[in-house]
């Protein structure tokens, strides 16, 4: 469309072509919607008709069972521990990947593309899917959750940080290379000082994601407070489920605030 408006006098043919293009795009979008709506069995009637049962469910959760909080302390700590260990192990594993996937540090093209490709593919899978697979593989519990978060954090942290690393000031790197510094010295004196604040900030961001994820890992049996949510709902103990949700909410908000303060200090 921009070509049509930029030329001074668009010929009629260009105008007609533009209109045809617009009609085709609209028709394609309409087709995608019809196809999708039929595929998911979308019906406005059903959505509105079932809405009262959804609100009934919410109503059954009021008031929350405050006393249940005592039973949640243990799982809550486990949630924290899963997120902390997952984030830290993932961050440590991300370091080599970050260096390999930055074209100003790693000049080996094949290795560069392999590491970039690996983290992009690993990132397409949600941590919950990793958790579901790991629970089937290594058994129920927070260990599976920790491994799932480790793997996902590694991929996402490596992607974010390596992209920032590629944008750093290459001056110090070239200076060290010119005076004969080896790779390790270059990383220590030219790369690390520039990238550490960004890396730490992304790690906190990944930790926020992991706290959110670790509250639901229990739904597939990978430990934490999500296990309580699952059992409460399966046993129709809705006030208990409400307490779990309330606790989750408070925890996520608190961690987000704390992490935001720290990140503002860093960058």
């Amino acid at each position, binding site marked *: 469309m921009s070509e049509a408006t930029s030329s001074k006098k668009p010929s009629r043919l260009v105008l007609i072509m533009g209109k045809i293009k617009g009609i085709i795009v609209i028709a394609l979008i309409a087709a995608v919607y019809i196809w*999708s709506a039929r595929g998911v069995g979308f019906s406005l009637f059903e959505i509105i008709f079932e809405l009262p049962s959804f609100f009934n469910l919410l109503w059954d959760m009021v008031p929350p069972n405050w006393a249940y909080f005592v039973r949640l302390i243990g799982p809550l700590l486990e949630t924290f521990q899963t997120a902390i260990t997952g984030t830290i192990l993932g961050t440590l594993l991300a370091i080599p990947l970050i260096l390999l996937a930055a074209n100003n540090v790693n000049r080996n093209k094949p290795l560069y593309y392999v590491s970039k490709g690996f983290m992009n593919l690993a990132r397409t899978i*949600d941590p919950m899917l990793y958790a579901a697979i790991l629970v089937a*593989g290594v058994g129920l519990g927070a260990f599976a959750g920790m491994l799932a978060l480790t793997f996902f954090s590694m991929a996402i942290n490596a992607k974010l940080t390596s992209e920032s690393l590629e944008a750093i000031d290459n001056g110090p790197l070239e200076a060290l290379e010119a005076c004969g510094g080896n790779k390790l010295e270059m990383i220590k004196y030219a790369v690390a000082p520039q990238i550490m604040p960004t890396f730490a900030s992304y790690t906190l961001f990944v930790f926020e994601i992991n706290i959110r994820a670790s509250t639901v890992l229990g739904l597939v049996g990978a430990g934490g407070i999500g296990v309580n949510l699952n059992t409460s709902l399966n046993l129709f103990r809705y006030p208990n489920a409400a307490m779990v949700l309330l606790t989750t909410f408070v925890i996520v908000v608190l961690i987000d605030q704390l992490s935001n303060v720290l990140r503002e200090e860093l960058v």
Partner: protein
Amino acid sequence: MKKPNLSLRQYEKKSIIWYIGYLITLALFIWAIIGMNINIDRVRQGIPAMGRILALMFPPDTARLESAVFGMIETIQIAVIGTTMAAIFSIPISFLAARNLGLPRSVPAGSKQVLNAIRTFPSLIFGIFFVASYGPGPLAGVMALGINSIGMLGKLNSEIVESIDRGPIEALDATGANGAEMFLYAVIPQVLPEFIGTTLYRFELNLRQASVLGLVGAGGIGVTLMQALQFRRWAIVGMTMIVIIVVVTIIDYSSAYVRNKII
């Protein structure tokens, strides 16, 4: 990334803060790893078990390619309808949450709080509740994404509204246009392309979410994966994973391409 020159004392103070940060991180890690009661046996059996599983996933069961693709198609459809539903709901809310449209101050503040609250919960939690009230199936997934995505879309879109150029509004005001006309001709044309951009971005995220919703019964490829996992059919799990990775990657790149074209 130019850094201001630091004096020696400032530099020393900075590195001390970093060391304290490392120590706190280390302490948290030790506390967490001890608290999780991971015994060595678990690790010793767990790591080879993962290797065995990975080996069993390959070669993937290509006979199940068709059912995995059908599951993935449903996942895409859930993401399309869910994202659109959220986009429609989020538009009025994002105008209410914008601070520059002359609404009484409590309206944007209150709307922002509601949006933040929605954003706090992962879509899986919405998924469970909609499965419980609507029954298992893709419609529950649509509702979960449709409600959950309002939080993020409303927040991003209200920020777009807050950053609009006031020039066209003032120009229309000067010609004596009323509020509705100013909104229609000065606000909407400015925000629409960026609204489409945020919606496409959320669609990319929702595609990943929709592939997980099946774990709680809300339709899509997650259901296929869950069944394969229940019967430990690792070759089917491998096939499902490959389909997810390929389709999500393709849609990510196409959506990013369209977003760059629009904005």
